[in-house]
């Protein structure tokens, strides 16, 4: 597929019942276990969940970056602008990567090449995908670093990743990701390794670039507060599935899924006095090696009934708000706790 025009009639990205099976030494991990969502151009979807819930596997699956041994389940679909990426050959996928979908990783020190200057890493993308001449690519790389908020880009371009601070490295990674003007940006925990003061700047930058380029963005984070402040929609993942999805405001004020509420209540609040006991969730997330019977959250849920242990609930729209999807048999309704 070439860089064809975006079709306005269909969502930019549509993920349908995505299942991944990752064979490991200890058995097959079902990291994504039937993920379904849609994303339109210019919108941000935040994917929130605890570690091991399948967020990162989902991101990698979208870019076709899963290990070679991984199996994408039958009936899974990743429709980008109408094309099913699951069926693409490796060569065709390479055209999609960077030009259509780009990704930023959590740890820029390990995602950047340590023996290559920042400038060459940006130019490499431009030369490979856009067939630019090295000189022109270098000039554009300086512009890209500038727009990613790196001060003194002319000097920085000849530096190696270890010479940059964590925040600057992440900005360089953003410059590489945006070099070919992708239509969809996947940011996998882009600020987890950074300080709060730097985090703010990176998230602001991503927001500005997204608005300017009308990009769609998937923001993966474990921090509900960041998701609420920076995304249009939030999808909460648990044990490989989306268990609740709604607009950021709805999810924060009227979440229905007991897991979402428990997660929200366990965040320490800035306005509570010292020594306030926190609401923790008992137990820990399920082991994804074993197939899950019934609702994955049932063993930790305070509202579990018999049916929860046997029947896995589907992600269904709420009666009053069709855009609010919940996978729970006995959703909590009414004011948030």
């Amino acid at each position, binding site marked *: 597929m070439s860089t064809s025009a975006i079709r306005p009639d269909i969502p930019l990205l549509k993920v349908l019942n995505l299942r991944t099976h990752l064979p490991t030494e200890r058995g097959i991990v079902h990291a994504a276990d039937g993920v379904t969502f849609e994303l339109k151009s210019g919108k941000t979807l935040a994917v929130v969940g605890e570690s091991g819930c399948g967020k990162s596997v989902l991101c990698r699956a979208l870019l076709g970056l899963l290990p070679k041994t991984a199996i994408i389940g039958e009936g899974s679909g990743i429709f980008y602008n109408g094309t099913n990426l699951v069926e693409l050959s490796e060569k065709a996928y390479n055209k999609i990567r960077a030009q259509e979908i780009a990704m930023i990783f959590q740890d820029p020190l390990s995602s950047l090449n340590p023996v290559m200057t920042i400038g060459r890493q940006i130019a490499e993308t431009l030369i490979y995908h856009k067939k630019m001449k090295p000189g022109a690519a270098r000039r554009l790389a300086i512009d890209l670093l500038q727009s990613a908020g790196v001060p003194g880009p002319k000097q920085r371009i000849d530096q190696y990743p270890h010479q940059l601070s964590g925040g600057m490295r992440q900005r360089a990674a953003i410059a590489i990701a945006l070099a070919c003007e992708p239509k969809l940006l996947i940011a996998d925990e882009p600020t987890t390794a950074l300080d709060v003061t*730097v985090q703010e700047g990176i998230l602001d930058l991503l927001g500005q670039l997204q608005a300017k380029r009308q990009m769609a963005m998937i923001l993966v984070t474990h921090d509900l*507060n960041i998701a609420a*402040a920076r995304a249009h929609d939030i999808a909460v993942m648990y044990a490989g599935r989306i268990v609740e999805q709604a607009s950021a405001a709805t999810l924060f004020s009227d979440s229905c899924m007991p897991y979402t509420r428990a*997660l929200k209540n366990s965040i320490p609040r800035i306005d509570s006095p*010292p020594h306030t006991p926190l*609401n923790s969730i008992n137990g820990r997330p399920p082991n994804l090696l074993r197939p899950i019977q019934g609702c994955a959250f049932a063993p930790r849920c305070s509202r579990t009934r018999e049916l929860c242990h046997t029947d896995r609930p589907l992600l269904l729209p709420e009666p009053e708000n069709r855009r609010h999807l919940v996978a729970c048999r006995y959703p909590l309704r009414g004011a948030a706790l």
Partner: protein
Amino acid sequence: MKNGEVLLDIRNLTVEFNAGKGRKVCAVSDVSFQMAKGETLGLVGESGCGKSSLARAIIQLPRPASGQVNFNGEDLTAVCGKRLRRLRPRLQMIFQDSIAALNPRRKVGQTIAMPLNIIRKGRREDRIAMAREMMKAVGLDPQSSDRRPFEFSGGQCQRIQIARALMAEPELLICDEPVSSLDVSIQAQIINLLENQRTRRGLTMLFISHDMAVVKNVCDRVAVMYLGKLCEIAPAQDLYQTPAHPYTAALISAIPSPDAGLSQSRTHLKNAEIPSPLNPPSGCRFHTRCPRTRPLCYESEPVLRDNGQGKQVACHFPLRIDLNPKIKKLISRAGYRLGNSTLLLGLLSYCFSS
């Protein structure tokens, strides 16, 4: 500080490391503060500001370059190795990376009992039983004492570390980022556990974190650190409501908040990058990023001074703290970024109108 007996009195503590080529990096420079018995002091700051170096200097790991660490009136920097070994059980530490802090080849029961072996407490055959008792107290299954660390999750490993630290029955517990690598639901469990143990055993706690919200929930007082220096120490409530140092204000405003929505107005630092501690800026170390820099800030270094309200601030031009709650509310609504002049104007106009 809370009234009461002083447990830890740190004076002019300086920690230096060799940075190669004859250069020295000053990780902690001339830091002084006190901790009362039973108090929880939070230590916050960006990575690389010297929080961990300060914590390790307190337990003499390694010994600091200069300064005093008075623990119950005894200067730890001056005592000999033998005496230090006697004193160490009373100061215990919990580390951030719980899996790396545990010996992977040792059974967790042995790991937890190890402090007893070192301080020669109890009969040898009782020690494992005592370890099991402690496992129960921190929410671990005593049956799993024969397992090794890799069989436990991150949260459980943190519980093992807490159990090990508590075995020696410390008076001071130093927690270096105890929850930053954990998920929120597990983080809440560990914080509650620490709080329970603190009240039950009357622990004094130094709680290091970069998460301002966690610190607010745990600590009585909070110290803010920047490039090896303390810039503000205040009771937690005061610090968050009326930060006096511009850096504190910036840290607080950088906390992501769900209520702010997509359009956020915040305190912006002039420069997001922390300068190198190898070559700290002249005068006030924060002047390169401070939104309120004036010529004096480039020249002279502010000292940590008491402002008379239980707060200590190291700033030439601290954000004013007014006494009237009505104005306080007004200011907090207007936001810190309006700066001092507006606050003063507001104060004056209020005084004239009433």
